[in-house]
């Protein structure tokens, strides 16, 4: 896998896949429930902070060219720390993929397959994961660069197709639940940029490592624009998202698209596109988990890992007993998980590794 090199645009698409996936399920709804009408302001604020953080990450990575976070943790704390960090990231990828998969399949069950058990809806995704894991990483990235523009286009289309149903006054009151809620508590929404976890693993795969800064910043900007489109669609169309909880809010928005009498009811086509997107996300989660596991165990043959991680994801996705547990996990626990792993732990490791490197340089110089 480490022999594959990807271009800048493909790297941006890889990062955006992670951003986009969770917005298809209940993430926008969580935002609107928390921030009400101030969500757009909050997203812009959080986006700027994410850009600054990503710039800091880029600067911290500068001293470790072509090394990812696992390699850096090995440099910092030896094999022990490498295994711990590797294990944490594997856990993070598999859990987030499992929860997303389960939530999406629950929604699919309600919409399309009312009589089918959710386990049978998850199985086709698992089979697709088996097949995707057996092809090369370069092919995975090429697949994403074909599929993701379609997904981005679908959201933009959703926004403009529903334009006549928008009521822009719903942007007010401008501060939503208040300044504290919007700018202090709302800082928690930075977990929307959990796709930054991908950035920690990108450096060894880049064809042009000099473009790393451009990749990071461009993906955050596009991600932010995407989030704004997403959230605006729901905020301006519906007032009840502040009161009622709806599965797949974007699907609900897609149901309103009508052009005359003939062009109606095309939300199933959106679901088709979003199935492709969820598959992309699962593919990325699998790939990075396999990559980390291979680094931890120095495996030469990763053929059988192609089967192990999808089975693990399948197993974890069946753990929650009902939808309420999934929503609770996603709304309460998952955001803290991202905050800790992606922002606090990883940046902490980078900072300490940089300090260690600086000390070594000083020692060498003296």
């Amino acid at each position, binding site marked *: 896998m480490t022999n594959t090199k990807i271009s800048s645009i493909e790297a941006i698409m890889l990062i955006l896949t992670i951003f986009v996936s969770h917005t298809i399920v209940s993430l926008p709804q969580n935002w609107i429930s928390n921030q009400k009408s101030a969500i757009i302001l909050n997203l812009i604020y959080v986006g700027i902070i994410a850009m600054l953080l990503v710039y800091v990450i880029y600067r911290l990575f500068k001293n470790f060219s072509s090394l990812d976070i696992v390699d850096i943790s090995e440099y910092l704390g030896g094999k022990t720390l490498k295994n711990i960090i590797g294990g944490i990231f594997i856990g993070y990828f598999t859990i987030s993929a499992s929860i997303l998969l389960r939530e999406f399949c629950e929604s699919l069950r309600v919409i399309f397959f009312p009589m089918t058990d959710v386990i049978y809806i998850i199985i086709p995704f698992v089979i697709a994961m088996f097949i995707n894991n057996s092809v090369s990483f370069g092919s995975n990235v090429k697949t994403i660069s074909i599929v993701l523009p379609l997904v981005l286009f679908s959201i933009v289309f959703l926004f403009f197709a529903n334009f006549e149903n928008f009521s822009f006054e719903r942007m007010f009151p401008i501060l939503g639940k208040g300044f504290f809620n919007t700018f202090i508590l709302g800082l928690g929404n930075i977990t929307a940029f959990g796709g930054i976890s991908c950035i920690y693993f990108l450096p060894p795969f880049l064809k042009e490592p000099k473009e790393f800064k451009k990749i990071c910043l461009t993906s955050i900007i596009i991600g932010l624009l995407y989030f704004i489109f997403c959230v605006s669609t729901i905020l301006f169309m519906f007032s009840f998202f502040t009161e009622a909880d709806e599965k797949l809010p974007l699907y609900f928005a897609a149901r309103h698209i009508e052009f005359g009498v003939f062009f109606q009811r095309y939300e199933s086509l959106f679901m088709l*596109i979003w199935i492709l997107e969820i598959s992309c996300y699962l593919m990325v989660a699998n790939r990075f988990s396999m990559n980390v596991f291979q680094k931890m165990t120095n495996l030469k043959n990763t053929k059988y890992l192609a089967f192990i991680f999808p089975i693990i994801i399948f197993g974890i996705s069946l753990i929650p007993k009902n939808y309420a547990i999934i929503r609770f996990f996603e709304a309460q626990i998952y955001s803290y998980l991202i905050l800790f792993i992606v922002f606090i732990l990883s940046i902490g490791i980078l900072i300490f590794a940089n300090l260690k490197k600086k000390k070594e340089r000083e020692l060498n110089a003296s």
Partner: protein
Amino acid sequence: MNFKNILSSLFTYTPKETYNFILLEKSNSKTSINHSEENILNTKKIFPTVSINLEYVKSKYNSMINSDIVIREFIINVRGKQYSAFLLYIDGMINTDIMNRFVIEPLMLRNKSNLFDGNHDRIISEAVANNITVRKVKKFNLPEYIMNCLMPQNTVKQYSEFEKIFNDVNSGNCALFIDTLDVAFDIEVKGFEKRGVEKPQNEIVVKGAHEAFVENIRTNTSLLRRSVHNENLIMENIEIGKITKTNCALCYIKNLANSDLVGEIRYRLNNLQIDSMLSGGQLEQLIVDSNFLSMPQIISTERPDKCTSYLLDGRIVILINGVPYGLIIPAILTDFLSSPDDKNMNTSFSNFIKFIRILAAGITLLLPGIYVAICSFHQELLPTDLLYSIIVSRENVPFPVILEILLLEISFELIREAGLRVPSPIGPTISIVGALVLGQAAVSAGIVSPILIIVVAITGIASFAVPDYSYSFHLRLYRFIFIFLGYCCGFLGIGLGLFVYISLLCNTNSFGIPYTSGISPFVYTPGHSYFLKPIWKRDLRSNYLNPKKERRQEKIAMKWKYPFSKEDDIK
């Protein structure tokens, strides 16, 4: 299989032997092999020594590897004196009869002109003054003598520069080089096949040439030579098959095609341990990277103009003796949706047709599956009136949708196959009878619904709109998988199937080149895009082939329009 073997196979890791050829990107090193081959002496004037001319011609035409270049050395008798000489010509381009009777015979055989035993110089006039005799003597002029006396041929020219000689040799003439002369004779002896060649049977175009390859390899190579008048067009001869020893020509333009690619193909062709090679399809399957997914990775064409166009891109063509098809290597996905007519037409027409082809490919692959998925799980997509029409039309049909569609699709394939086998006088009749009458009868009998007939018919027509036969067959085969997926789980199955299909497509390589090059809308591939740019903007060759020459035309190709402007001023 004993216990030890079982244990070792379970717990020991033996790396799988995978053959992985990747076409590397161009290096910037000036010492690379590509550059060293450029250092050939570009001499213009013919040498007076025949041996030097011979060496020069041999290196220029790569006669060691070029199998159709013939150099005939012999001794000329001119008025009792003997001179070394050689003839240069291309086999397959000349008329052998003319060559033998009117070129070689007068030069080699003993005749009155050759037998002369006197003073070669001729006294024109003589004057005596003061006991001194002044004679005007005309020196013997060998070139003039040969031109006037030894060449009973209608068109003979004398050139002192190699370039002109080579141009005419490439067109089918022969060149005569004689020792002590710094000129060469260009003799008209053209005799390649003209219009014995037939029209293409399966690749019909509106505006392009109407010639097709034939079984004879030399005729086929001459068809390519006639389009590419360049000494850098190499036709390497390779024998394949221990028993049949089939001649194959590996054709490429030396200063365009990537050397690594040529080397790789040559390596694969030379390392086939088979008894016989009788068809292009057989060779295709033996040399591709992977046959998984049955995706075609080589273009098989009966058109020389298509081969020429791809040769000029930097690709390689394989011609096989006894097979009226050329194999173009490598080929990516977008090549199978292109037709030779595209570059002959106006860009906007071509792009419109290319868009129709993409639709056709999508319809062939997905329409039946989507229809099954909609009828099974997603009826809300249909407009209410159409839904009622379908429900009413299906009222009397005893089969479920999946069985109905499989019945019709397989019947359609049967009719298609029968149409190929039936003798030509009644072939069209069978197609019409099969398609119309059977379909109508089936609807009247209530076996199938009329809407399904339309779906299957549109799918069939769309499959015919795909230019490449292999690719359309691949789509026809894989639509059955999408039908099953649509029946199983509706759009979930179609979506996941499509995702896996795209993934496997991206994983496919055609001789080291990713199969989906140039498809992603946001990944720029210089020199390549599926939709054509206007002809004056097609100045670069596709970069995924890593050709030796990136530019195929100047940035301003239309010098007549912009004779004085700089490149930057033109937008």
